[in-house]
Structures are given as structure tokens and as C-alpha cells.
């Protein structure tokens, strides 16, 4: 390494090695494009509703992704679905990260809380989550907000476990004891010393939690627990399943499936690339 490279801050070094990873950069661009589609959905296609005249048409110039059994444009459904799928994925993930951060840091810092919180996390992680989410979503009634809350409610333990193990490595550090000795309040120590230490790990966690949340949303909507007033990729698949189009009209299922794959795969590859870039030993 040259002298100039050594002077870079860790953040700059991470960025410069991230930029050299083509898969990571491509994933980032795909995610930005999908976010743009989600934001600009009304400009791209009209909201799919009502009945159309061209029913169950394969893809054509007029309907890029074909039409479903009641004549709605599948392209418009996928575009509007991007909105709900991404919104639920991101908000569920943010909520799960906040809860996971709070629980993980408290477990690591307040020794007395560690055992009960650890047992809680362990128990939650060993339960089959999807059937539990189904039960709660069915009871609470289907809506976009229900989906986000339910998914977050059962996704935080993963985050809490990662945060706790990272925070446990920081708590015994001399600067934490020093902060205690000079009379720093617990809240101040957590904010000033623990949070900055666990944030890099949380960065990877955000991405992975989002992709898992997107899959969970798709699964719940596929089973018929989606918001009846809006479109998501899972809802499109659910309608195809109900109308019997699964085995006949391939276009009604292929395009939403590709959208899910594209979003989840690019978030996963982005987190892998970020991890590699942060791990500076690997690029020497």
C-alpha cells in the first residue's frame, strides 16, 4: 500500500474497496432503481383496478408483462407492488433494528438483564416464525401497517443477538470503565461508546433484515394476508393461485417472482460486498 492510501479514514477505505467490487456496485444501482420505481409508480403506470377487456393475454407491446384473468395489466401490478413490498420491507426492518439494538445493548451493558433477555432471544429464535406471523396477521386483520409491525415483531431477535455479541466485546474495554469512573451516566456511555461500536455490524444487519422482511411480506401476502386495498408482489402471486393461473398463465407469476428475486438478491450481494470492503485484510 502507498503512503497516500494509509492516510485514508476507515470509511473512505471501505468505500474505495467497495467501489472496486462490480457485483456490489451493480446491486447498489439495482436497489436505487427499484426505489425510484417505488417512488414514481404513479408516473409509470396507472393503479391496476377494475376489469379490463383483454383477459389472460400473454406479454405484448400493449401489455409488457401480459394481463391477468380479469384483464388487469401485470406490469402495472408489479410496478405498484414495488411500493408496498419495499415499504413493508424497509419499515419492518427499521423497527426490528431499533428493538434489536435496544435489547441487544441493554443485555450486554446491564449484566442483570443479560440472562432473561438472552433466554427470550434464544426461545424466539427456535420457534417456526412464519406460522406465528400468519396467526398474528390473521387476528390483527390485513393491512400494510399490520404486516410491517408483525414482521418486525418476529425479526428483532436475530438483530438483538448480533448486537449483543458485538457490544459484549466493547463493555470490558478500558474506556468504558474510565467513563464509569468519571461518573458518566449509563445512557451517556451507551450512546457515546457502545452505539458507535455496534453500528458497523448493524449496517450489515439492516440489509439482511430488509431482505428477510421482503420475503416474509411476500409469503404472508401469498397466503392471502396482504392488504386487500393495495398491490404487493405476494398479492399478485396470491391472485394467480386463486384464479388457477399458476399452471396456465406463466406471465402472471414469472414477473413478480423475478422482482422478488432481484430485490432480495441485490440486498444480499450488497451486504456481502459491504462486509468484504469493511474487512480490510482481504484486499491486501
Amino acid at each position: 500500500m502507498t503512503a497516500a492510501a494509509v492516510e485514508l479514514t476507515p470509511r473512505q477505505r471501505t468505500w474505495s474497496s467497495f467501489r472496486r467490487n462490480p457485483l456490489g456496485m451493480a446491486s447498489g444501482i439495482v436497489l436505487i432503481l427499484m426505489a425510484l420505481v417505488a417512488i414514481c409508480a404513479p408516473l409509470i403506470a396507472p393503479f391496476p383496478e377494475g376489469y379490463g377487456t383483454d383477459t389472460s393475454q400473454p406479454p405484448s407491446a400493449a401489455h409488457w408483462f401480459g394481463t391477468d384473468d380479469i384483464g388487469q395489466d401485470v406490469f402495472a401490478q408489479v410496478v405498484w407492488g414495488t411500493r408496498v413490498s419495499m415499504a413493508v420491507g424497509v419499515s419492518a426492518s427499521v423497527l426490528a433494528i431499533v428493538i434489536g439494538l435496544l435489547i441487544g445493548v441493554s443485555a450486554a451493558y446491564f449484566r442483570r438483564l443479560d440472562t432473561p433477555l438472552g433466554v427470550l432471544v434464544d426461545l424466539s429464535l427456535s420457534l417456526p416464525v412464519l406460522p406465528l406471523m400468519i396467526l398474528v396477521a390473521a387476528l390483527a386483520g390485513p393491512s400494510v401497517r399490520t404486516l410491517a409491525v408483525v414482521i418486525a415483531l418476529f425479526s428483532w431477535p436475530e438483530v438483538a443477538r448480533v448486537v449483543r455479541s458485538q457490544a459484549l466485546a466493547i463493555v470490558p474495554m478500558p474506556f468504558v470503565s474510565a467513563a464509569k469512573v468519571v461518573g458518566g451516566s449509563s445512557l451517556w456511555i451507551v450512546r457515546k461508546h457502545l452505539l458507535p461500536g455496534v453500528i458497523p455490524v448493524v449496517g450489515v444487519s439492516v440489509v439482511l433484515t430488509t431482505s428477510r422482511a421482503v420475503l416474509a411480506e411476500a409469503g404472508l401476502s401469498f397466503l392471502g394476508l396482504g392488504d386487500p386495498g393495495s398491490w404487493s408482489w405476494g398479492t399478485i402471486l396470491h391472485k394467480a393461485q386463486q384464479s388457477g393461473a399458476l399452471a396456465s398463465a406463466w406471465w402472471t407469476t414469472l414477473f413478480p417472482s423475478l422482482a422478488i428475486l432481484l430485490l432480495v438478491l441485490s440486498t444480499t450481494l450488497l451486504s456481502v460486498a459491504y462486509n468484504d470492503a469493511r474487512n480490510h485484510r482481504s484486499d491486501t
Partner: protein
Amino acid sequence: MRFFGLRLARGLLTLWFAVTVTFFLVRLLPGDPVLAVADPNMTEELRQKLLADFGLDKPLAAQYLDYLGQLVQGNLGMSFRQSIPVTTVLMERLPWTLILTMSAMVVTIALGIPLGVLAATRAKGWLDRVIQLTGVTAQSLFVPSVGIFLMYVLGVWLGWFPIGGAVDLDATGFGATLSMLHHLVLPCLSLVFIQLGGYVLTMRTTLIDALGEDYVSLAKSKGVRPGKVVWKHALRNALLPTTTIAGLQLGTLVGGAVLTETIYAYPGIGRAIYEAVGQLDFPVLQGAFVLLAAAVVVANLITDVAYGILDPRVRTS
């Protein structure tokens, strides 16, 4: 013995936690459970009678104890829609889910180990890169998408396998077994697809680590054939983390089974869940979760015991 006792206690604690969480979620969430079975315009008298029939007029603590007492006797309540016990509904579905998930697990392990070995022994080569990238991609797949794809290509297009149900009703004897296996192929393959990535990637990493250990260098310098070093010496140790993965992936496997059964109209617990969602049959949903949680606890106990037998160290620590 102490090790197995602790594991058993842990399993029971998990089960109690699952049961308690669902009980309180169902009772404390907004929504009148009686509304789900009856007309919203019913008289107050009828409503009270229904509440009493389902035991919903007692204090919460009494309801909870009742529920636990009933559970211990294997009673999961009555299905709202079908007016038969939930246990009856689910017990006839359980064998199908067990067949599906267990066959998927066996096939995944049978494919995952050789693929992991292949990637690890050619680490950093192009084959390794391909296997790794495929593994990551496979983990990003949405189960119903895989199911629909396989159904379309192998079922509808090529016509090799049936696309729905679990067995031909008019087949008998050996023919019935064959028909069952024939129906099992597509749902099982869908689950294998999404599970395989995790196994292969773990196998690869642990085997690469194991191949760097001293005992491997020793075996090599003694002149043991390279193939034998991998399969006999290193693999044995790399199998341990794979056992852990099997336990960790149980949740994914169960979730995947729910979605796969829905696609293929496979008559397991998952399909029962899908039907219960459509009919808002909460006792069935609750019972299905409790039953699946119990299955996961039992399967986890089995992997723990297997781990204990494979690696004597964990029994003493």
C-alpha cells in the same frame, strides 16, 4: 446424561413459551373471536352463550390454566368452521408434512455434503466461485416462486410429475407407494432448492478450516491419499457445524413447507393453514403453530443428541 437432561428441559421451556405467547396474543389482540363464528347482528343473549361455550367469559388467568390443562391432554380446541376438534383436523395432516420435510432434509444433506466438499477442495477456483454464487442466489429465492417454476417446467411443460395432491386415490398397495413418491418429487425439490445453499456454504467454510488443521497436515505427510484425507479425516469434523445448521434451518424448512404445500395442494399442515386463513379459523391457526413448534422442538432435541454422540466434548462442557 446431564447434557441430555438440560436439552430436554430447554425443549420443554421452548414449548411452554410458544404456547403462552400464542395464548396471550390471541386473547389480547383486538377483535371479538365470537364475531368470527357468528353473525355480527346476533342478540346479546346468544353472544353470551357463545362466549360461555368457548370458555371466553372467565377471567384471563383461569382461561390460561384451562388452556394449558386441555393442551396437556392433547386438546387444541374446536375448529370454528368444521365443528370438529382441531387435533383431529391437524393429526390427519401431520404425516404428510413430516414426509415432505424429512425427505427434503435427507435429499438436501445428501446433495449438500458432496457439493460442499467439491467447493472446498477447489477453493478459489472457478467451480468454487460458481457453487458459492449459486448458493447465495438459492438463499435469496422465494419458495413459492421456485415451486411455481418447477411445477411449470417439470409438471406442466414436460409432464413428468403430477402438479397437485399427494397420492392417486385409486392406486393400491405398491402402486400407492409409487404414486406417493411421484407426487412428492416436485414439492420436495422446491424445499431442497431453498435449503441447499445454507448447507453447501457452511460445509465449504468449515471444511476449508478443517483442511488447514495440524492433523490434516500430519495425515498428508504420512502419505495418506488426498481423497482419503478429505473424506475420512477432515469431513468428520466438518460434519459437526452441519448438524447445527440442520437445527437452525428447521424454522425455514417449516415456513417453506407451509408455502410449498399451498402451491401443490399437498394435504399437510401448511395447506390446512392456508385454508384456515381463508376461513378465519383461528383455533386451527393457533393449533397448527403449537403443533409445528412442538415438531421443531423434537427435531432440535434429535439434532442435539446427534451432536452429543458425534462430539463427546459438548457433553462434558
